[in-house]
């Protein structure tokens, strides 16, 4: 199982490293957003903090992950269409390792993107006095969020009939941070928008990461954030596995 998954991950990582645009494109959009919000809109946004890069970063990271997982759909879709998937699942190997290889590859490649975005944020003035444990917790939440969205991405990757269809779902995910506490406080939003913003997953995840990075506290939002991530992951995993099995007859 380990050898199989390892071989398949090695193959997918080679694919990514040979088309570096997949990592750069994914990192560039959130970096542009960060530049735009900090140097264009930032001066006019009242957040009650003196460091807007700090305020913005958690939401930007989620945005990077949301656009990064779309590549999992693309890679899966390509495998199904090229016949490689059929080749793998008719071989004497554990079938689930084929999906897990894609999911774990997504975890690694998104971690790389996140690192790039954080480095750019440091240049723009991002500062945190969080300790190792806080950083590990942040990595844990981001990892869970990546897993949840990746399992979600597996479903269109397996079932879509066109490349556009395989990635269309990612647009609303990428824009979810806009209607949340990621860029501006939710207090100024009209009531209905505010109710949505305060009760969607991005807000609780962003608040939980902020608490860990800047307040040295765990905060209350972390439990809601974890519940969202695990809930989405569980449901997506269930439907993805079901689709995978049914597709194989």
């Amino acid at each position, binding site marked *: 199982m380990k*050898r*199989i998954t390892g*071989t*398949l991950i*090695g*193959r997918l990582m*080679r*694919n990514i490293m*040979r*088309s570096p645009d997949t990592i750069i494109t994914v990192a560039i959009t959130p970096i542009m957003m960060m530049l735009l919000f900090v140097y264009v809109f930032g001066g006019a946004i009242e957040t009650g903090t003196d460091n807007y890069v700090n305020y913005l970063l958690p939401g930007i990271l989620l945005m990077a992950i949301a656009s990064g997982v779309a590549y999992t759909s693309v890679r899966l879709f390509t495998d199904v269409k*090229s*016949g*490689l998937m*059929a*080749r*793998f*699942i*008719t*071989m*004497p*190997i554990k079938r689930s390792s084929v999906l897990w290889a894609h999911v774990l590859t997504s975890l690694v490649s998104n971690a790389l993107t996140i690192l790039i975005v954080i480095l750019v944020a440091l240049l723009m003035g991002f500062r945190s006095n969080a300790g190792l444990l806080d950083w590990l917790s942040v990595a844990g939440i981001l990892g869970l969020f990546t897993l949840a969205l990746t399992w979600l991405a597996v479903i269109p990757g397996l079932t879509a009939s066109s490349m556009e269809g395989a990635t269309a779902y990612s647009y609303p995910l990428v824009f979810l941070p806009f209607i949340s506490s990621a860029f501006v406080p939710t207090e100024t939003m009209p009531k209905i928008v505010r109710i949505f913003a305060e009760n969607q997953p991005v807000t609780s995840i962003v608040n939980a990461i902020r608490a860990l990075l800047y307040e040295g506290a765990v905060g209350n939002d972390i439990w809601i954030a974890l519940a969202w991530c695990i809930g989405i992951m569980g449901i997506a995993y269930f439907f993805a596995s079901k689709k995978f099995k049914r597709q*194989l*007859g």
Partner: protein
Amino acid sequence: MNQTAISIKRLKKSFNEKEVLKGVDFEVQRGEIFALLGSNGAGKTTVVNILSTLMKADDGEALICGIDVDRQPDGVRQSISLTGQFAALDGMLTGRENLMMIAKLRGVHNPAQVADRLLARFSLTEAANKRADQYSGGMKRRLDIAMSLIGTPEVIFLDEPTTGLDPEARIEVWNTVKELANGGTTILLTTQYLEEAEQLADRIAILHGGVIIKTGTLQELKEMFPKAIVEYVEKQPSLEDIFLNIIGKKESV
């Protein structure tokens, strides 16, 4: 040892009310090249998909080397290899990397050596370190078949191996398949080209209207029809002969 490599009885499969296979029966002996001949949409790929554990039949029985496809798919996967309608390779990887990947997945002892040997056998050594998406159609197909040979499976499915290839590449693939059969591998080949079945197959089954309407060697099939009449006709070269001659491939098999 049981001499039957593939045995199918009363195999049925429908898609949304449309009955594609209406009770297909045939047997393939070990070491035989067996061609499943039929027009587009006759259900050839459906048969291959069921035999290669990609799909479940609605009814009937299918055995590969005596193992039931439906009840023991894991056992069946030990002895088969699928070469589907499209060359199933990772275009971003080189030819050698593609072969190494499959060798590692199959748990072969020395993947690098196995890869190099196959590259040489399929005349791909020169292109070994080129990315597979830069290969020609014929080269892709040869790499694809080479990938299917790793782990020496007993039964190989070749689903329309030459569809979409130019005449030159088609002959390359034919030679490859003939060579395989000499090695004692059982091959189930599907094709819509009569000439391909004639060139390669030991026995031929004609799949039409959801059932096998005739099975036999080419000779047996020929004998079912009225005796040939001897006529004297000036033999004009076919366009294929001309094409192959001009581009310098003298032997058209």
